[in-house]
């Protein structure tokens, strides 16, 4: 089992690399551009009238310290990492004095829930149908499903969410189209609360699932149609092995490993889709929070969300990487 240990170590290294490069990009974008967020904030506050220069100076100093922008570039870099390590992004300007971490902490579970539910549904259903379509190539129903999936695949997240919103918002308004839960229900393990959460999540989950399911279907179908001509499948068919067994243990099982890799690689894109879907449906996750932050000039909030997004996605990818050797035993031997 020691080869698994080395494998985990390698993937951990990749995880650290991703977080390091990602956070550096964030730092680069915020600190190495000629725009100064402090000056921006000040100009938006002072544009409407007279301001005492001394008050402005105090504000400037306070903001500099808040944003970690005082000192040399190297000092700013260190401050940046230090704050990230303890999760301190400072208070949010738009929701002063609530800290950014609190806001993110409230929004993150919604995003995580949306992401995991729809990805699970889309990946499992998409792969299953795609596998059947790749194996039973002559089946008319599966061919028709294939055409629909091919049509769905290239459509970007925003357009798909918009279409779902229009269909269920205006033509067939049977489900709530915004919010995460009814406003006046007390949170807890009550039936009212849980059912409200579920009904509010149906449309965003449907949206996000539709965005990705086409890709899984088409990918699995083409994988399976290649696997079907592999030696071990032909041999098993030659031997009269039960067809059902061939479909599950010989064909689909061998296609799952590359599809899992595909999942890890597309998680960044799915995350993008998730937060866009949230914006369309007003779902209280990181997406709506991000847009709110941009619109209100809340530097710390936007910075915080960008950093957390990178860490969250990297963690999810790392978790998937850990699962991979259980699907493909060949990976243990290196």
């Amino acid at each position: 089992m020691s080869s698994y240990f080395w494998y985990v170590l390698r993937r951990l290294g990749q995880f650290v690399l991703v977080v390091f490069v990602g956070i550096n990009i964030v730092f680069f974008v915020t600190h190495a551009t000629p725009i100064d967020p402090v000056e921006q904030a000040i100009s938006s506050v002072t544009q409407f009238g007279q301001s005492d220069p001394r008050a402005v100076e105090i504000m400037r100093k306070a903001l500099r310290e808040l944003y970690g922008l005082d000192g040399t570039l190297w000092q700013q870099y260190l401050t940046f990492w230090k704050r990230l390590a303890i999760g301190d992004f400072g208070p949010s300007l738009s929701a002063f004095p609530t800290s950014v971490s609190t806001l993110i902490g409230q929004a993150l579970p919604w995003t995580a829930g949306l992401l995991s539910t729809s990805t699970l549904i889309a990946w499992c259903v998409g792969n299953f149908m795609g596998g059947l379509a790749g194996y039973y190539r002559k089946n008319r129903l599966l061919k028709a499903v294939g055409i629909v999936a091919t049509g769905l695949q290239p459509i970007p997240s925003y357009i798909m969410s918009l279409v779902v919103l229009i269909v269920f918002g205006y033509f067939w308004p049977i489900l709530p189209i915004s919010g995460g839960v009814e406003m006046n229900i007390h949170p807890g393990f009550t039936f009212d609360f849980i059912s409200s959460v579920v009904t509010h999540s149906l449309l965003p989950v449907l949206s996000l699932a539709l965005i990705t399911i086409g890709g899984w279907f088409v990918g699995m179908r083409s994988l399976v149609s290649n696997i079907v001509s592999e030696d071990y499948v032909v041999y098993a068919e030659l031997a009269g092995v039960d067809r059902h067994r061939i479909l599950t243990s010989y064909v689909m099982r061998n296609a799952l490993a590359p599809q899992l890799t595909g999942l890890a690689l597309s998680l960044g894109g799915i995350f993008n889709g998730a937060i866009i879907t949230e914006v369309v449906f007003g779902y209280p996750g990181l997406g709506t929070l991000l847009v709110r932050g941009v619109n209100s000039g809340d530097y710390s909030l936007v910075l915080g969300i960008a950093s957390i997004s990178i860490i969250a996605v990297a963690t999810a990818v790392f978790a998937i990487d850990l699962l991979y050797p259980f699907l493909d035993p060949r990976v243990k031997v290196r």
Partner: protein
Amino acid sequence: MLKVLRDLFRHNREFAFGSILVLIVLGIVVASFFSPYPPLDSYVVPPDIPPSWDHLFGTNSRGQDVFWQLSVAMRNSLLFGISVALISRVISVAVGLVSGYVGGMVDRVLMSINDTFVVIPLFPILTLFYFMMHDHMSWALLALAMASLGWPYDARLIRSVALSLRNREFTTQSIFSGMSTRQILLEEHLPYVLPIVFSTTLNNINWSIGLEVTLSVIGLTNIETPTIGTMIYWANQHTAMVAGVWWWVLAPVATVIMMFIGLFLLSVSMNEFIDPRTRLARMGV
């Protein structure tokens, strides 16, 4: 070359359907050069008129003809998408070929960097970028930013083609006959790699226009320039759906969906045409 296209059109349904869709969209784009109204002007026609013979797709709440507005918008979006795709091609092809052909440590390092970029979620970073740049944001800048972040997925595909080429016999022949690495890459491998580069370009165009639409709709780009995204942005600002001006939203959404599906079908059918294995599968079934 023409014969290949004709064969594809006749026998491959996806290619035929895809080309028709793309041609329709291109037709709309070309029409933009004949627009009777200057695209940036507003209130040149009576607002909120439903589709009619005078105004094919109706007019919007800003007093613009939706059809002519759409044609310019599609043109701008398409130009943007193509520029991003072309710029990022340079990086993907370079990384993919070098990584696949040279292999070893160089390959491992490049692919680690590649996978890093693939995992990083782009939307928050682009939003952050916009936030910092604010009024200094321009389309060119956005294109550069997207191109420098959008190359890794395609680089991996190109690398796998380069890997399989490296092991083929004609490569060893070229090495033994004394060709330099650069020569081999340019003269021997490039013709094989071009079809997949072409199909990834089409996919990248789809991707960049999709991202542009998303950013514009939230208002994170220059909303004065007519693009598909900004059209939807303005429609939302004027609450078009609620006000019943549905044609303002339908026109750009339908057109851009046509283009996405069209380009996608083209790239898929080109890939199938090239790949010898799918050829065999299609013949048998």
